[in-house]
């Protein structure tokens, strides 16, 4: 009586009645059976010998199974096997035995190959076709692509372009399930009807919705951690092919900052603040299980949903990579049905959001004359401009360099996708093309994306999938901002555009780019147009990600998923500054050839066991073994002295000098084992525990393995009777979690002692310098990950049937073992007497609130969602109790950093991250304060510093103090979607409050001797004493007034760290408005389409801020640690974009 079922798993007969799977199987067989046609199988003529003519049905079944190849299936509640049957014969064919055995019962049988199935005759005979039309309750428009499935089976169909469907059902007891993304799923019993017209209601909050969690999925209602979900549809509103940018403002606790307005620039994403000082704070991005994905290159059009894991309960499963939060992306996959083609095209125009107020040519000429006149110590100075010259400038107005450099730039985008599938294969194929001109002339970015997602049902116990994604970028985006090798900011067009003399035309009389004037103004900067047109950073990158899996159903509830993923990244850069640029000119052109390649491999083996016991106990166990390896290698050559700018760096052989050549190769291996158990009781009490062990090659010898536990509890109070009786909540859940995660931000080989070249010395005493190879870094066998322990308390609420929802989370994170360079004793011989070590700790606490509501439903529909995140950081421990200065080094004479001891940005124990230190400027001395000013060796109109320690002097030691902080008090996003008939309107407002920005740009443009800012018009005069801008006091006046009085102002080597440049960085921004119009279906269907939508979208439309720079969102030092953000200097400005587009489906 053994049934060899599938996968060779043996099951007892009585097991059948409980086995859901078998039931499903049977049903499928029944459906497949068009009964008698199958009943003529060859084997039915086999002869069966029976011991007795009278016996039970069970004996007959045994006899057939023992004597033939047939297996017999039935449901015990339908077939009484103890019934005595009288067969009259001892020998007969299978068919006649069966016919006789079932005679006089309501049973029939079906033969399929070697299977015989018993079932009630009526079940087998009565298939009924149900038809109907599905419409949206709100619009009464037909809904296309609604999934209609027969409950308890995997049979299903999809509604057609008219919303019509037809499905065969088994009997009157069948239940049809209607599901559609964005609408509440409806289950309707057939109950004898043959026509079922259904009107679907958009869902407010679907608690049965499945969300992706690490290494699996969960019902949303079962999630115990803090997870924010964003639907792909919310990401495609911006005319962007970058998912990072698109994520802005959509999820509480997720702060997206667009630091860089350059096309192809990157946004920083911080989840619940930054934990690390040197280790990087980028969240781990996992795309369809592929770890280390990149949101900035992920096309939002390919995204089904994004889940942001925030608390340790959710992220600890990612162990040593999870400390900065995890962003799980699920890309779209095909749906069963005919191919559906989506195409969209958009065309947009970008323009600068704001120009900085600068003096025009004649104004600048006059300002320079006024300034020059004050330089009278050695006699009357010669003024740079004659009246005639100024009059001439009055006619032309001079050169507006911002108008020259910034242009109206276009962008266009094509997107196409095809999806569909059968029971066996589902596919989603998408391609994208994006072409964006940069706001600055000669900058451009193109991206091509291609994705192919295939899901294959091989058989009942095996599924397979292959996801491929290729991204190709090309462009020219010369570096801007700080931290870019030899390209100091004076060589960047975006820096000189504000500083360059407006009296000088772009081209001189001979048609060459004009050079900076020598007699006046700013001599450090170079013609911005020469710089822009002569700077090339041609990048070409290819990213290919392959992701595949096999999923085995080993047993009921037990699956094994084996995944294999590979990521290949290739980058070629050709950087060239030609001989007309500031840094290329003295050396006849300078350039780099940089090749960089990365390979990443990942294999995750996921064993999942799912079991419901007595309908109330729900257990899910997950066990994973995973291995990852990554390799990064490349080379970089810099050369100068090119004989031709045309070939430039493309012919590096033409260079007269190679400045350096480097190559590198580094590898990282991670082995991991992890487990998670989810248990829920009656959907009310939920427990999740997880544990992960990560072995990483980059850790020190003594700490190769890190361990990351987590635990969380949730209580769905809304399932309790006493809460149900309140009739208030449709959902009420309390959550609590604790766990540990890590940050692996150690470069490979960081724990090893390394030997480096270049420590040369003429050891032998000849005229040749002998090559020296010395120990350049000390080993730290104890080096390990940074650890973040996080506690989270949260609450999910839904009222009025889910029309109003709220999620509130409070959290506290403590990151310890921070990676810092720690001094070690000199006797160790360690170079620089320091090693990379785990010292220091940082705390982040915060509150996140998400409120959602559908205030208006019906024909006009409005849904709104607002999220607010507050994070407070505190540095708990550093190397010592002294403020730790952070490098914000700049070229170009900005003087805000000289050494760690006189830095603008710093960290201090007990204080938040992002502290700014400097001198407090209390405006200017008034005439009435002459005596006080004289005491400092100053005059009325001079900058008035706060004497913090009241010693009568302004010194670095005594008066440098806190002048600002770059961390916002809160950030918010407010999403609105409105629809009326065929119109939809979405509005995103986002912003932040309470952060300071150090507007370093002003240091130069408000400099009295060369500044171009209109702020200089507001300089101190006797009649304008209430101002921050110091007076132009002439030298003779100063000398005479201060005769014998020494200056008490000594600001040291970073004198421009002034509170005067600290501005409020708060803003509220109308980030995006999109208005879409769906053409009526009646019209559209005539041209063979199922949908046609036209839309107009505008981004960065309006920003309310007091900030005077280009944009409050920019930050120059975005490459370094988070603790140095908030300085605005030489950034690529952000753009305003207006885009028109269409979207069609057939």
């Amino acid at each position, binding site marked *: 009586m053994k049934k060899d079922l599938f996968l060779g798993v043996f099951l007892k007969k009585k097991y059948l009645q409980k086995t859901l799977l078998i039931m499903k199987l049977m049903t499928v067989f029944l459906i497949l059976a068009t009964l008698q046609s199958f009943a003529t199988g060859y084997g039915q003529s086999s002869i069966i010998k029976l011991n007795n003519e009278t016996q039970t049905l069970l004996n007959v079944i045994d006899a057939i199974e023992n004597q033939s190849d047939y297996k017999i299936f039935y449901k015990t509640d339908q077939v009484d096997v103890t019934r005595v049957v009288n067969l009259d014969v001892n020998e007969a064919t299978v068919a006649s035995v069966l016919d006789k055995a079932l005679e006089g019962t309501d049973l029939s049988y079906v033969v399929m190959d070697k299977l015989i199935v018993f079932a009630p005759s009526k079940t087998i005979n009565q298939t009924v076709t149900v038809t109907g039309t599905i419409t949206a309750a709100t619009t009464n428009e037909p809904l296309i692509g609604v999934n209609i499935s027969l409950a308890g089976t995997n049979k299903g169909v999809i509604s057609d372009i008219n919303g019509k469907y037809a499905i065969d059902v088994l009997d009157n007891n069948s239940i049809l399930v209607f599901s559609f993304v964005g609408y509440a799923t409806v289950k309707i019993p057939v109950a004898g009807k043959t026509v079922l017209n259904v009107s679907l209601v958009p869902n407010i909050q679907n608690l049965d919705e499945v969300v992706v969690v690490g290494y699996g999925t969960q019902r949303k209602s079962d999630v115990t951690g803090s997870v924010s979900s964003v639907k792909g549809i919310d990401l495609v509103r911006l005319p962007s092919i970058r998912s990072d940018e698109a994520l802005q403002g959509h999820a509480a606790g997720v702060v997206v900052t667009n630091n860089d307005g350059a096309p192809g620039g990157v946004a920083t994403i911080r989840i619940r603040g930054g934990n690390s000082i040197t280790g990087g704070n980028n969240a781990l991005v996992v795309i369809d299980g592929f770890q280390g994905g990149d949101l900035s290159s992920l096309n939002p059009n390919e995204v089904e949903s994004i889940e942001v894991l925030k608390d340790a309960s959710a992220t600890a499963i990612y162990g040593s990579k999870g400390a900065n939060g995890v962003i799980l992306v699920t890309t779209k996959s095909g749906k069963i049905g005919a191919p559906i083609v989506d195409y969209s095209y958009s065309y947009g125009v970008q323009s600068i959001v704001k120009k900085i107020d600068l003096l025009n040519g004649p104004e600048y000429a006059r300002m320079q004359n006024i300034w020059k006149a004050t330089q009278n110590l050695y006699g009357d100075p010669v003024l740079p401009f004659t009246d005639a010259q100024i009059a001439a400038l009055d006619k032309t107005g001079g050169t507006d360099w911002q108008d020259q450099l910034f242009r109206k730039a276009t962008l266009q985008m094509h997107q196409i996708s095809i999806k569909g599938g059968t029971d066996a294969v589902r596919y989603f194929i998408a391609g994208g093309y994006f072409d964006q001109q940069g706001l600055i002339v000669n900058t451009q970015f193109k991206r091509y994306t291609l994705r192919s997602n295939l899901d294959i049902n091989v058989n009942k116990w095996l599924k397979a999938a292959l996801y491929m994604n290729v991204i190709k970028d090309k462009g020219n985006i010369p570096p801007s901002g700080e931290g870019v090798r030899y390209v100091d900011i004076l060589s960047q067009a975006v820096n000189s555009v504000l500083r360059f003399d407006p009296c000088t035309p772009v081209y001189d009389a001979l048609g060459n780019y004009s050079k900076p004037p020598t007699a006046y103004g700013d001599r450090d900067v170079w013609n911005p147009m020469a710089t822009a047109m002569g700077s090339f950073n041609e990048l070409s990158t290819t990213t290919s990600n392959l992701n595949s899996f096999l999923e085995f159903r080993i047993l009921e509830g037990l699956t094994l998923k084996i995944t294999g993923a590979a990521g290949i990244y290739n980058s070629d850069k050709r950087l060239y500054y030609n001989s007309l640029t500031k840094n290329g000119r003295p050396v006849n052109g300078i350039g780099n050839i940089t090749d960089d390649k990365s390979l990443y491999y990942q294999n995750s083996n996921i064993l999942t066991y799912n079991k419901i016991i007595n309908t109330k106990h729900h257990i899910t166990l997950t066990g994973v*073994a995973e291995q990852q390896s990554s390799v990064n290698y490349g080379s970089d050559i810099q050369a100068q002295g090119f004989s031709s700018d045309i070939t430039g760096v493309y012919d590096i052989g033409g260079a007269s000098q190679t400045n350096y050549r480097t190559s590198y190769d580094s590898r990282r291996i991670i082995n991991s084992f992890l487990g998670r158990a989810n248990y829920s009781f009656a959907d009310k009490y939920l427990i999740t525990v997880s544990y992960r062990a990560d072995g990483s090659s980059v850790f020190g010898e003594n700490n190769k393995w890190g361990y990351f536990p987590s635990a969380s509890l949730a209580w769905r109070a809304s399932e309790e009777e006493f809460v149900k009786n309140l009739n208030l909540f449709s959902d009420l859940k309390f959550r609590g979690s604790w766990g540990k995660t890590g940050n692996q931000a150690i470069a490979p080989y960081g724990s090893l002692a390394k030997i480096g070249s270049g420590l040369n010395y003429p050891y032998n005493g000849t005229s040749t310098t002998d090559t020296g190879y010395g120990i350049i870094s000390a080993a730290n066998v104890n080096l390990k990950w940074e650890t973040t322990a996080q506690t989270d308390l949260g609450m999910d609420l839904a009222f009025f049937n889910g029309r109003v929802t709220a999620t509130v989370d409070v959290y506290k994170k403590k990151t310890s073992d921070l990676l810092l360079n720690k001094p070690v004793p000199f006797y160790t011989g360690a170079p620089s007497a320091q090693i990379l070590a785990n010292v220091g700790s940082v705390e982040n606490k915060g509150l996140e609130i998400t409120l959602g509501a559908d205030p208006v439903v019906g024909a006009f529909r409005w849904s709104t969602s607002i999220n607010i995140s507050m994070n407070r950081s505190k540095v708990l421990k550093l190397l010592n109790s002294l403020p730790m200065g952070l490098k914000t080094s700049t070229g170009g004479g900005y003087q805000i950093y000289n050494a760690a001891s006189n830095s603008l940005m710093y960290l201090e124990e007990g204080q938040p991250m992002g502290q700014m230190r400097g001198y407090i400027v209390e405006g200017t001395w008034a005439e009435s304060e002459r005596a006080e000013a004289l005491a400092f060796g100053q005059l009325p109109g001079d900058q008035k510093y706060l004497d913090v320690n009241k010693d009568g002097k302004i010194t670095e030691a005594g008066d440098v103090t806190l002048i600002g902080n770059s961390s916002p008090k809160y950030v918010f996003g407010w999403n609105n979607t409105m629809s009326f008939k065929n119109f939809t309107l979405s509005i995103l407002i986002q912003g932040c409050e309470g952060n300071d920005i150090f507007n370093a740009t002003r240091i130069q443009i408000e400099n009295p001797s060369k500044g171009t800012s209109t702020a200089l018009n507001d300089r101190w005069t006797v009649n304008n004493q209430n101002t921050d801008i110091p007076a132009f006091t002439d030298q003779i006046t100063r000398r005479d007034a201060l005769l014998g009085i020494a200056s008490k102002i000594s600001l040291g080597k970073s004198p421009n760290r002034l509170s005067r440049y600290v501005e409020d960085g708060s803003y509220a921004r109308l980030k995006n408005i999109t208005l879409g119009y769906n053409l009526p279906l009646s019209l559209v269907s005539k041209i063979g389409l199922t949908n046609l939508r036209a839309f107009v979208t505008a981004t960065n439309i309006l920003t309310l801020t007091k900030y005077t720079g280009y944009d409050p969102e920019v930050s120059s030092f975005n490459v370094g640690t988070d603790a140095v953000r908030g300085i605005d200097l030489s950034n690529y400005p952000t753009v305003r974009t207006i885009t028109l587009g269409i979207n069609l489906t057939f």
Partner: protein
Amino acid sequence: MKNIYTNILLKGSIALLVIFGTSCQKLDESPKGLSTPDNFYTTPAQCEAAFAASMNNLYDTWSGYENVYGAFPDGQYTNVDLAYGANYNADFWQIHYRAINDINAVLKAVIKRKSLGSNDPEVINNIIAQAKFLRSFNYFTLVRLWGKVPFITENTPDPISTPLTPSSRLEIATLYDSLQTDMTFAIAHLEDYDASRPARPNVWLAKTLLAKMYITRATNPLNEKDYYAKARDLADDIILHGPFQLLPKFDDVFKSSNKNNLEIIWAFQTTDDDPNIDGIAMAPSEWGGWSGGAVKPRWAEEYPDQPRKRSSILMDFPSDITTDPMGPIINYKNSIDGTPYIQKYLWPMISLDEQLNISRQYAFIYRFPDVLLIYAEAANMAGTGPTQLAVDRINMIIDRANTDGTTGLMTGSEPKATMAMSQAEFDSKVIRERDLELCFENDRIFDVFRKRLLQEVTVDEEGVANPDYNENCYFFPIPVADAIDIGQNTGY
């Protein structure tokens, strides 16, 4: 029934095997693009590249002994501060231990890992000998300036993971014993002097270092008198059998055009692409100099008048070297800085071009007169007074010092040593002669310490004693970062 479980067990085992069996890659790192101490030092050339790096720690542009002048309170420079700060001269402590770190890595690889396995044993021994010589040289400086110091060798556990303790500071005599053992090995396996590679450690250089150790042990703080005889005999061996000699003209020794001449036993080396600091760094302000290495006027005035003085100390110099090097001469007293400078490192010892730009002059470590004077000192102290050979050998130096290099005439006023001198008088004469002959060559501080002359040499211009002087000044304070682990010297 049984089959069910067997099957599940089988399937489960396969699944687990797939999962766990394939999931363990090696976590050890073996970088491709760079070397580590675990995979380097596999050829003699790689080992010598590490020795080069160890020397680079000591002597590199703007760091280490390239920028040393005036760093020590030896009475020759204007700087006589005896109130040593917490990290007084810690950079010298640091560079020596860095150099030791590079050398120990070689020894660890060659001795323990047999990284030179397939080479001729004598080649391997030569590498070990070079390493032991170089390491001893570094420790010899450390022990003389800081006393009991941690003796880190290739056998010491990694001091970063296993911090040292006060007990890791060896007794001074014990340390010397270890160094002498290393030096005995070095002398046995180093090559002979090779004029084509003059700065490479050789047997005579090692003997010189050992002779210096002997004379140091014989004096403060150990005062092991029997080492005088050892020093005498070893110095005699070097003088009689070594390749070194006194050049007839004192000036010729220091000309940057005559580097590594036969009077030079060892010097910190320079080349065109690894030069010394700029010549102007140590020049008077009149030359556009940065006034580094200003000489103490009192010491300069006491220097006996002789041709050697004019080649050693810049007392009078042309006021405008750039346009008229032969033009008006001013005395240091009338100069902007008011101090003399070190002639040994300035024009005309170096070319005018070197004076104004990058200098290729190098820094002397051991010079033949040093050995002659060790002999004289040791012979006198080993017996009961000066011997004729001791007197002759010191007088070789005095005679040359008194001789005008151009005319060959003996114009100097410094008296010669005589057999009539008492043991103490002769000893003082030798130490003073070392002061004069070897001035500005980074040797005087050791004589000051071992002969306990600090109080005497640190008087100010008026002869007033330095108020900060005390006996503890004969050892520098252990640098702060290190003292936390290994404890501090007395008095700090």
